[in-house]
């Protein structure tokens, strides 16, 4: 895996816990949505740095009260055709003003990166063989957009009437 954040490959410093393992002291951890629902109070009280992993099936609305306590939301794409994560990211960013990391993981394609960025993703878990330079090139393909979205770039209608 290569983790790309803000356009730079970095080490993933997070520990992604399964639903049984106890949180190691002092670590930054992510837990599944199910575990979050069951243990969020205890986890928040434990003082560790927290993140949650979501899939399209999870009721993302239910973490919105806790967004202050979360440094990372990981959204899974079990298949590149599963577009639910795009809506979830926009809702977190635009409706709830979430400013922590929103990371895409799973089956994500180079040619989806710019759409994901526009929806508010700022980190990508890339498959091991990914050519990072090429991936970053893909972000530059389209430089204009008709719709305002989570990246807060000015849309074409806004530019036209600036």
């Amino acid at each position: 895996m290569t983790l790309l954040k803000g356009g730079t490959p970095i080490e993933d410093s997070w520990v992604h816990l399964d639903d049984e393992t106890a949180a190691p002291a002092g670590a930054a951890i992510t837990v599944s949505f199910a575990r979050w629902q069951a243990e969020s109070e205890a986890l928040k009280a434990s003082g560790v740095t927290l993140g949650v992993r979501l899939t399209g099936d999870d009721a993302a609305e239910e973490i919105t009260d806790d967004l202050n306590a979360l440094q990372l939301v990981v959204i899974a794409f079990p298949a590149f055709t599963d577009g639910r994560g795009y809506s979830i990211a926009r809702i977190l960013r635009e409706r709830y003003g979430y400013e922590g990391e929103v990371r895409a993981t799973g089956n994500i394609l180079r040619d989806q990166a710019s759409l994901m960025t526009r929806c508010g993703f700022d980190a990508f878990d890339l498959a091991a063989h990914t050519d990072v330079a090429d991936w970053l090139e893909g972000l530059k393909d389209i430089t204009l957009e008709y719709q305002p979205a989570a990246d807060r770039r000015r849309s074409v209608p806004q530019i036209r009437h600036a």
Partner: protein
Amino acid sequence: MYSYDQYDTQLVNERVAQFRDQVQRRLDGRLSEEEFRPLRLLNGLYLQLHAYMLRVAVPYGTLSSAQLRMLAQIARRYDRGYGHFTTRQNIQYNWTKLEDAPDILADLASVEMHAIQTSGNTIRNTTSDPYAGVAAEELEDPRVYCEIIRQWSTLHPEFTFLPRKFKIAVTASPNDRAAVKVHDIGIAIRKNAEGETGFEILVGGGLGRTPMVGKTIRDFLPKEHLLSYLEAILRVYNLNGRRDNKYKARIKILVHDLGTDAFREQVDAEWENLRGKGPELPPAEMERIRAFFAPPEYEKPGSNHQDYIEKLRTNAGFAEWVRANVVEHKQNGYAIVNISLKPEGGIPGDATAVQMDSVADLAEKYSMAEIRVTHQQNLVLPNVRQADLFVMWEELRNQGLATNNIGLISDIIACPGLDYCGLATARSIPVAQRISTRFADLKRQHDLGELQLKISGCINACGHHHVGHIGILGVDRNNEEYYQITLGGRADENAAIGKIIGRAFSSDDVVDAVETVVNTYVDQRQDDERFIDTYERIGPKPFKEALYDAA
């Protein structure tokens, strides 16, 4: 009509360059077919039975002469000299090569056209009334909103990987020629009690395996909220539409499973957060787009108008063509002219490069250089002076484009079927050709009156058989092509799904069966009743008896 500014041009050019790079990566093996597939689909490129098919968007069916000439040139240069107009007002080229696709897209971009989102699970080309802007009875030009939707839906970051494809249609006329009730979203421009125009919003219509008529979820949406409301609908669908079964993934299934009221509540809850925010257009932008669709300068009927009246009286062939193919224009002295792409025994919707060029020329000469593509797979010249009709008719006749069968039994909608389509269970085109030949006698066709016959080569229903007055669906029975007949469907403002009349007919028998249905109507009709009126009055029984009891 709309014309691109620097931003529209830049975006489409960037898209062409992006696709050129994607094709290059496919050709040199950096992308597998599996990885490439979603990318080519987002640019309208399908792999069919024999070749790549490229579907080009004709936004809401409006073309300029220059654009139509480019479509002709593409047909000549990259295909076999013809193209195929579809029920969604697009054009398809059935014989293209992958390595040519980027050049085709670049040629299209040079005339402000593209193939963006003509396939894939995303928002497709927004369709509209082919008589938009010129229909006598319309409230205002619906293409203003189609263009707004075109821009908003183009490369929308959130809605490019929906559960399934998504089709929007807009009409502004009480006579619905855009089939808004059988679209994922149908938009009908309405006037409220205060005399303001706004939108009635329908959702969940569609054909395919589970045909459904759309339900109204909002009677009157103020214009300024169009995009926030659409975004709310799409978001509810994107998050909740089924992704486990592609046959249950269209929005109609979600609306049906939740119930219309519960669906509306979810949309309204989402809309609360979007209304007046992000996606909403600045009023100045709405005005900018509206200005492109301002009515042209029309001339007053001149002295040669009398010649037209005279020709109508003295030339029976011309008068018949006018009666069938020419429609009342909102402007006195002008006419809307339909050009049938359904000649006797022809392939519905096909046009040769030569024909496209001559229609482009005619439009330049007689119709302010504008052409429309219709949902019925025909072409329209929307702004013709009545005084020019006679000379134009003569020119059309020379090109084999004066078939006067609009709305009649041989004005058939047919999908490509097994001749091209990898999903087909049976052929559609040859059946259409045989029916058109059987009913070649135009006198008889005119006597039968309005009759919509629609043929699909499989249950996906691209030929809209469910909403044909007579629908024909190709099915497979022990590896033989059989055809199921449905009666009583309609796609207009009283949209209804046709009912299967009985067991299917073999390919040899299906044309006779259609003729039996038609003869039954003739026996039973009262006065000037149309086929659909007779059917609705007497029901299926007499048709069933005629088809099956004799045997």
